[in-house]
């Protein structure tokens, strides 16, 4: 079976559509981060207390809120976890910001939530499944470390690509990956889903995946440039994308299948994680064609306009 034999799509001719599409999504995300939901950070990063309670039956939301309020906790947010397909939605996440936990001791928040629940629901009717308490310094430190690790690893990738191809290839790949991360984090902001440590792992996964996709296209461009030096760069890039298109669709499609099944059936704990992957794989595949490759051409045009040699460095010749 074969999906595409020889496609002949003018990808670069559509670059303005791509630019528009990317801009709309990036700007929407950025606006949401700046003015609407912000970057919703989980307890992991912002500090605070999170109590995950499973009730025997779906509790009345108002009653639960009153119970928590009566326990002297006024700034708690209560979130119902939608049951996975065919399950009862009887799980609630009660989260308290750091300020309400830190007034007396590290685990004051948890104790107050438990006391409030015990006063209003009988012991047998609920079960505390998970408690997370993160102090303010720990949260900040985790956040800083996750950022630094990500930035350093991007620099590492850039340097390797510089060494294997040319600097512009590395820059284009990193810009594409940054674009993907921005849009994915934007998607979290738009849908107001919290970014937790496992979501960070998912974002790292999407960075790896998107980078992989971009390199496959770049490798083909390098190979084609080495073969035919007279063809225009636009044609070479178009041809390279078309040649790798069936691979792109098959590989991304298959990975997408796995991730989608994780998103649909993987359960609540994996929800944010698999959401990031679902968005990330779509956007990562798109960006290698629509962001990274056009950047190479744009770079060459820019060089030409400055009167420098119009040819893109073909990259170090591939050894075979």
């Amino acid at each position, binding site marked *: *079976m*074969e999906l595409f*034999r020889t496609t002949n799509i003018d990808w670069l001719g559509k670059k303005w559509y791509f630019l528009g599409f990317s801009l709309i999504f990036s700007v929407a995300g950025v606006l949401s981060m700046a003015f609407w939901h912000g970057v919703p950070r989980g307890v992991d990063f912002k500090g605070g207390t999170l109590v995950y309670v499973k009730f025997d039956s779906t509790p009345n939301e108002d009653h639960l809120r009153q119970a928590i309020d009566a326990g002297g906790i006024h700034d708690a947010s209560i979130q119902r976890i939608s049951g996975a397909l065919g399950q009862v939605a009887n799980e609630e996440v009660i989260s308290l910001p750091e300020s309400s936990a830190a007034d007396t001791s*590290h*685990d004051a928040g*948890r104790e107050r939530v438990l006391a409030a629940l015990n006063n209003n629901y009988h012991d047998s009717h609920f*079960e*505390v499944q*998970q*408690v*997370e*308490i*993160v*102090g303010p*310094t*720990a949260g900040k430190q985790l956040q800083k*470390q996750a950022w630094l*690790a990500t930035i*350093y*690893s991007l620099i*590492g*990738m850039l340097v390797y*690509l510089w060494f294997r191809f040319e600097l512009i290839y590395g820059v284009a790949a990193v810009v594409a990956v940054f674009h993907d991360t921005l849009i994915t984090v934007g998607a979290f902001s738009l849908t107001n889903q919290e970014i937790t*440590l*496992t979501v*960070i*792992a*998912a974002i*790292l*996964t999407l960075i*790896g*995946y998107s*980078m*992989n996709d971009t*390199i496959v296209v770049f*490798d*083909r461009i390098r*190979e084609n440039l080495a073969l035919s030096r007279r063809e225009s760069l636009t044609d070479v890039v178009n041809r390279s994308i078309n040649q*790798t298109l*069936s*691979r792109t669709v*098959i*590989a991304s499609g*298959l*990975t997408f*299948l*796995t*991730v*989608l*099944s*994780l998103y*649909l*059936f993987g*359960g*609540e*704990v*994996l929800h944010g994680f698999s959401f990031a992957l679902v968005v990330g*794989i779509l956007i990562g595949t798109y960006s290698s064609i629509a962001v990274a490759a056009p950047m190479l051409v744009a770079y060459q045009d820019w060089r030409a306009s400055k009167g420098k040699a119009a040819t893109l460095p073909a990259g170090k010749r591939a*050894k*075979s």
Partner: protein
Amino acid sequence: MGKNLAGKTASIIAILVVACFGFVGIPHGSLKESIRRNIHLGLDLKGGVHLVLQVKVAEAVSGQTDNDVARLEADLEKAGIVGASVGKLDPTHLDTITISGTPLAKSSDVRSVLADNSYATYAVASNPDGSWKLTMKPSAVKDIEARALETSIETISERINKLGVSEPTVQQYGLGANEILIELPDVSDPARVQDIIQSTARLEIHQVAGGPYASDQDALQANSGVIPPDSVLMKGSGTTGGADQVWLLKRVSVVSGNDFRDAQPSTDENGRPDITFTLTTAAGNTFYKYTDANKGTGSMAIVLDNRVREVAGIQGAIRDTGRISGGGFTQQSAADLSLMLRTGALPASLEFLETRTVGASLGAASIRQGVEAAIGGMLLVMVALLIYYRGAGVNAILALILNLILLLGFMGYSGSVLTLPGIAGVILTIGMGVDSNVLIFERIREEMRLGKTAASAVQSGFAHAWITIIDTHVTTIVSAMILFLFGTGPVRGFAVTLAVGLLANLFTAVFVSRVIFDAVLAKKERGAALSI
């Protein structure tokens, strides 16, 4: 090409067997059980308590200078220097000791006392007015801090071991921030564990210099507004129980922290829980001298974590055993406290930074759902590969399965812990594994379209795809290594499975898949078509 196929196949099978042994071990019970024994799951997957705490190492430094103040007072007195006042005047510099009030004429005597090797950890400066300033050297401060962290880890480990938690982890965490990570699988009540870990359990016996008073103000008034420099005020419920009272205690303790050899829960004559302690021989001698000298006249306070637990008159000379009673103990609290005393005092107090508790049922449910979904997804991928690539699809499936086996084998041998972020690494590995196969197959198809024979299409397909695979894999492995270096906890778990998975993938997608192709081609006649 096609050379030494038997040798290659044999080495692949050998590697496969070794990897299987890594996570199955010697088969014993069901396969599921064997795997569970060899693959360690993180707390996010199996449930338990995860704590990160910080050791307040500055307290240990301050404690050392406190001791040195007392020693210095004694040494100066022994050298016949009277009227010296030794103390830590500056509350913001607890590593600094000042000596004032020594006559200028005695300067050389002070200098010779300070020249003693036991003060070598201080930088000494003398002022023209005859006062002295001792500042602890940075290297000594560092030593004390490192020792405090180490002792804290040891003490906490011992306390946890005595609680009987299976497979606990107590280790240094983070980069030089004096943090300790504690992981307790299968523990669901963090509160008690937290109490037991956190209690400094610094038990001291001080001489009572005055009191009890109703409040700090009363105490000040009774002492004409000034607390003597050798004394401190300390709160506690004392013998009476009930409301807190204030005592004036001699600053330097008679018996302190590490002088205790043993402590056991016991009951007093009324059947109430109390604690019996035993002192070390040396401390017992000191204690004997002290109680003998003060019997009938003085009283002493038993102080736990800077709070008076009990005040008792000294009725007779005591050598090495004593009792803490009347503290309103329950059987549980007496047992917990004696456990803490037995395992020794913490050199500094602790602050909790993170507490995460995952119920075992949630852990089990999440892993089951996640694994089922992942397996379901993989099966879908395998079916799709078979439909799309037919014969070659089998190569890809074998390569993927072998990749997973190698990864599991590594996890088993290295004892790495599989966490949720680790599973993210596995997913990326699978994604890139599928991609490697697809890259190769598409390339072979392209070459065949150009009219090459099956054998040479395979040959050049692998050759071309190989470069791309190397580039994608090395880039990702480089980033995984950097993540491992700079990341902590979850980010590291991701990096480890990713790096190992990709190395395994280079082997399976390129080498193993090639051997399978060669084996298939070797059986075919020249020029026969390839199922791809």
